[in-house]
């Protein structure tokens, strides 16, 4: 039963991601992208990974896709600009697709894909002992994989510093009044009654 669901949702993912790059309106593209994210979350649900499914919905749909939507609405790109150079790059893309598909076909068709035995974290075994998926992820993330977690923290710190470097400018170009000056203003200086 699960396998049919898998094929159904994978089909939805592939068709909606084709629609992402082929639709004329940029806002529609982003909406299709959100649909793709939802479907991939469902794929995780089918594999009993409810925490990952929720994370995908929260992070990708909630944060990234909404940010995309804002950017697309602000940029105001016309249709012709997006389609520009499509024909020029199309043959090259076709060659790339052909290479990838033939490679994957070669790999997966001529040998059956064995399920490895000595997996570091055996999901099925872990599921039997501890029923909660979220609890297990937390357990592994903060014990076995803590150094990866720490380095990811460093990446986030670096992203913060980088955003400050790229966005902050030294001289104030905006014509705004400083809040200190605003507080100094007295009513009798401004309003005059004749």
């Amino acid at each position, binding site marked *: 039963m699960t396998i049919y669901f898998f094929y159904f949702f994978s089909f939805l993912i592939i068709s909606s991601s084709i629609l992402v790059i082929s639709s004329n309106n940029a806002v529609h593209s982003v909406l299709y992208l959100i649909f793709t994210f939802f479907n991939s979350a469902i794929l995780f649900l089918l594999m009993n990974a409810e925490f990952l499914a929720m994370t995908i919905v929260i992070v990708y749909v909630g944060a990234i896709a909404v940010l995309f939507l804002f950017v697309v609405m602000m940029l105001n790109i016309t249709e012709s600009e997006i389609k520009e150079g499509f024909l020029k790059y199309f043959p090259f893309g076709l060659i790339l697709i052909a290479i990838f598909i033939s490679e994957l076909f070669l790999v997966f068709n*001529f040998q059956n894909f064995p399920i490895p035995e000595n997996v570091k974290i055996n999901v099925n075994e872990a599921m039997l002992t501890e029923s909660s998926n979220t609890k297990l992820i937390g357990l592994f993330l903060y014990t076995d994989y803590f*150094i990866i977690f720490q380095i990811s923290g460093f990446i986030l710190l670096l992203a913060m510093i980088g955003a400050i470097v790229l966005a902050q400018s030294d001289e104030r170009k905006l014509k705004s009044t400083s809040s200190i000056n605003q507080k100094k203003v007295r009513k009798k200086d401004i309003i005059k009654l004749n």
Partner: protein
Amino acid sequence: MIYIPEVFMSIGFLIILIISVFVKKNQNIVLGYLSLLLIFLTQFFVLKDIFLFEEIFNNFFVIDSFGSFLKSVILICAGFVIYFYIIVKNDSSLNRSEFSMIILISIIGMMLMVSSNDLLSLFVSIELQSLALYILVSFSKEDFNSSEAGVKYFVIGSLSTCIFLFGSSLIYGLVGSTNFSEISQFMSDQYSVPLLLVVGLIFILVSLSLKISAAPFHMWTPDVYQGSPSLVTAFLSTAPKVAVFGVLIRVLVYPFGEIIVDWGKILVILSIFSMLIGSLGALRQDDLKRLMAYSTINHIGFILMGLVPGSEDGITAICIYLIFYITMNLGVFLFILNMKRDQLNVTKIKDLSGLYKTEPLIAGCLALLFFSMAGIPPLAGFISKLLILNIVIDNNLFFLAIIAVITSVISAFYYIRLVKSMFFDSPTEELDLLTNSQSKLLLSIFGLFNLSVIFYPQFFLNLCASITLSLFALR
């Protein structure tokens, strides 16, 4: 007690980050000196444990002499770049407290890269390093070229990340573990190596060659080298290359050592393409930084050639080549940093003309460096090229050796063209003289080093041979 240099460096970085908040706006040099101090101390910790072997952090990282040696080389590169930052008068856009911070954090990433023993930790540390480099490349906001280079580098870098992840997911799906020692165990248990593993390795190889700009994955290099600030280019062309070569050697030799037949061919193709494009592409360049980009591609091809046999001697030769390569590159970029006319940076080749008449010492040192890059006999570049060619011929790869010699003759042409322009052309407009004596001194030291290596090549040979022993002996 885990007392590894990376942990020390990270803690030191955080402390300097806190100090940077309290430093006044026009005193960023203080932070440069602090970073230099931190790099010195970390260097001490690296060298203290250079002969230690230990698997740490739940087998995610490994300390061995090969890793420690590369860490020390990376630290030296970064130390020089930060020293350049201190002594050379920079553009106003580089005068921010964050500059040395980001260099420090990228070094942490590189040090983690060369010591990682697992695909997962390798991925995370490559991300840490390359995110820092994207920011560095687009550092000067006023310059349009810098932002363009930043976007290009970012797009290419994300593509390389995707390819890496895809390859590692294939390997994980087959092996059931991302750990190098378990992948190696899996390979030795198998009767015949599955095709899927080879495909995964090819993906990882492509991703790493995007990072070292080996042709045909070199497209971004000239634009990024030209667009980014010269100081950043100096960093970009030295330290990350060393780190990625460390990763490449570790990944190919240790877990995938059994399928050398498969990756050997790929490396041959990569190195032939890199040498050809690196030498032919540079012929028509008129910008010194673009020319250095093509020269880097050429050198990368040469270095990759040493890895084709996958033997101990080859890796020794690669280590020696990397040391000499960074001294040559840092020297040339130190000069480029000082190339100014009316307080503005110029990087055209014709600006070099007549340098000999105004600055004979500098012109001499620069000529030494260029000759060394071309591989003219008594200099350092010659020794490293000789070692690599020796390895290649020993392994009966004659066609590779012939291509290498031909391309290095072609590349000698454009290096000599630079030297000719310095010594024999009449000057068009004079450059500003090198105002700081420290740059002069440092440039002469680089030149002298390249000249004098011929008297003690045995030192480097013994050092690198004992280093690479750890990669093979302990496993």
